[in-house]
């Protein structure tokens, strides 16, 4: 397996699953689901690991893109397809979205974020975070297979 494939399976997939889990945790109303809300330690770890992965995965992915892709290694340093800048831009938005969501969720748990608009914001941001993780993961796996630079 290539480094890019290992990166996707070991880091990218857990990030995707945890983000999906946190979207279901936040729920449509922006409030925590009861099944996880009762487990304070599990909830804290879930968000902590999610934020950690959200920072590690895109930055390490960008590093891999720059160090492992043949185009870069050959020294031309040019991306031939719009998919790669798209992946880099949206992928690096993931830590911004998830860090902000984790911060807002903390305020929501402390009952400092209870209104309709703030719940809508949290719910919407988690869905956008999931969307960007999905898209970056899809483009990343295509890149790992060499689709964009063959």
């Amino acid at each position, binding site marked *: 397996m290539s480094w890019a494939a290992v990166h996707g399976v070991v880091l990218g997939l857990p990030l995707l699953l945890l983000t999906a889990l946190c979207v279901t945790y936040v729920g449509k109303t922006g409030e925590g689901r009861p099944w996880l809300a009762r487990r304070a330690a599990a909830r804290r770890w879930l968000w902590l690991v999610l934020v950690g992965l959200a920072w590690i995965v895109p930055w390490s992915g*960008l590093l891999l893109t720059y160090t492992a892709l043949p185009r870069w290694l050959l020294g031309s340093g040019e991306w031939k397809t*719009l998919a790669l*800048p798209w992946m880099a831009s949206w992928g*690096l938005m993931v830590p*911004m979205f998830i860090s*902000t969501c984790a911060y807002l969720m903390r305020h929501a748990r402390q009952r400092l974020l209870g209104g309709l*608009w703030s719940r809508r914001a949290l719910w*919407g941001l988690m869905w*956008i975070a999931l969307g960007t993780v999905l898209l970056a993961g899809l483009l990343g796996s295509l890149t790992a297979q060499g689709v964009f630079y063959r």
Partner: protein
Amino acid sequence: MGLPLQPEEKLEGRVAAAMVALGVGVLALGLITPLGMGLIRWGLLSQAMVRPLLTALAFGGWLSTWAVLARRWCGRQFPARPVVLWMALLVAVGLLLGSPIWVWFVGRGPLP
């Protein structure tokens, strides 16, 4: 007899700061591709340098905006609706600029 007025939803200053800063950060990341294309075309930066440099600037801008606003807005209350809508607008523009959609209209140059 009129209906009772709903109290306007308020956001604590630090929460509003996090939301606005997120909008600024996403917009900055979205600007990397169009701005980078311009910088390469005008010969101001080498192609390999553009994305790492602009990405670092976008993250620095996001974190410093968050820190400055959180410090200045701490303890204040803001109406929630305009803050959320501004954040949504900035995020939407950032996502659009970060996607390849706009390139179909303005044409393609060397990609950062």
